[in-house]
């Protein structure tokens, strides 16, 4: 409210001090019977477009954050081509038993995998191949082959199998990953079970080894 005397004097002299009361329902109806401003439609569409863009950006942000989360969960996420290269490289470092060959590694083209997964897959392929070779040697009574299989598998567990810390999942990535191919076992007793299986087989009780060979053989 002004305190300017001129404005106050003018205000007191206002010839129509209040808004005029008007009966206007009919006027409102008459005016709005005409077509509304066409530009309002464009405004609405513009607002809708802005809303859609905002939603798309939100979804993209969510997807991006989810991808980051997955990436963090997997360690460093890599494309299928990298995983396949890892698998091929690991084949040069890991030996398969006589007569075995490396199966084709099928991986979905739009998948993401943690770094090292290709090498880990190769380790598991080699492990299973040697287990089956061992089973075959036992069945054939080939003690030399059985001993060779046991030796290779023991070395594989020692060199190429890591156990994640207690509470961590198999997706755990070692802080300093080894240069050689490796696979991670969760600290849930699984690795001990494998060691016991090999010990039992070496002691003439190959049942678990046979089961492992059958269960893990490539389909």
């Amino acid at each position, binding site marked *: 409210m002004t305190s300017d005397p001129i404005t106050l004097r003018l205000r007191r002299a206002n010839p129509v001090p209040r*808004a*005029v009361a*008007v009966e206007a329902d009919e006027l409102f109806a008459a005016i709005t019977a005409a077509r509304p401003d066409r530009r309002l439609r464009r405004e609405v569409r513009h607002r809708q477009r802005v809303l859609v863009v905002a939603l798309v950006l939100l979804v993209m942000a969510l997807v991006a954050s989810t991808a980051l989360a997955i990436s963090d969960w997997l360690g460093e996420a890599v494309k299928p081509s990298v995983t396949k290269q890892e698998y091929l490289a690991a084949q040069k470092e890991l030996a398969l038993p006589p007569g075995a060959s490396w199966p084709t590694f099928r991986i979905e083209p739009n998948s993401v995998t943690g770094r090292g997964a290709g090498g880990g897959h190769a380790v598991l392929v080699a492990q299973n191949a040697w287990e089956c070779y061992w089973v075959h040697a036992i069945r054939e009574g080939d003690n030399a082959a059985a001993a060779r299989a046991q030796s290779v598998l023991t070395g594989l567990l020692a060199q190429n199998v890591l156990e994640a810390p207690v509470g961590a999942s198999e997706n755990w990535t070692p802080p300093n990953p080894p240069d050689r191919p490796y696979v991670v076992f969760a600290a849930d007793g699984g690795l001990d079970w494998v060691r016991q299986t090999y010990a039992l087989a070496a002691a003439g009780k190959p049942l678990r080894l046979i089961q492992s060979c059958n269960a893990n053989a490539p389909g």
Partner: protein
Amino acid sequence: MTPELERRSAEERFRVVFQHLGTVTAYARRRGSRDADGIAAEVMTVAWRRLADVPRDDPRPWLYATARNLVLAERRRAAQTSDRGLEPEPSSPAPELEELDPALSRALRSLSALDQEALLLIAWEDLTPSQAARALGINPTAFRVRLLRARRRLRASLDDPGAERLPAHPGQLDVEGT
């Protein structure tokens, strides 16, 4: 959005604007319109037709600017009728202005049209300087300068009635642009 929903949305928006019909009518009467109701109705018709231009947050400056243009057009038509020696259209006069303090009325008429309007938008329409600036289509700083100058001139004119200029249209405030 369907056409029916668009219409309803437009009507809802316009209803907010239409609430100012009474204030626009009062504005037209204060400015000496002989047909304030008609001016206000026309302002609202223009507002409906150009609703996208009417500011959502504060439509009053836009409505007053439109009303001012229509009052000026009405006055030009009346002047043309008078120049042709024809009788002016029969319509109600603006009796309110007859009741205005004669000294104040004379002092107001001594000011330029924009100075008058600047003072009256603040004093009679109760707009803030920013709103009044929008109604006049000038920037707020320029408006404040104009308002200050207009107050000084009005005060001087009231203090020294001899300094007044003769009114162009006795009995009616001059709201035409400079």
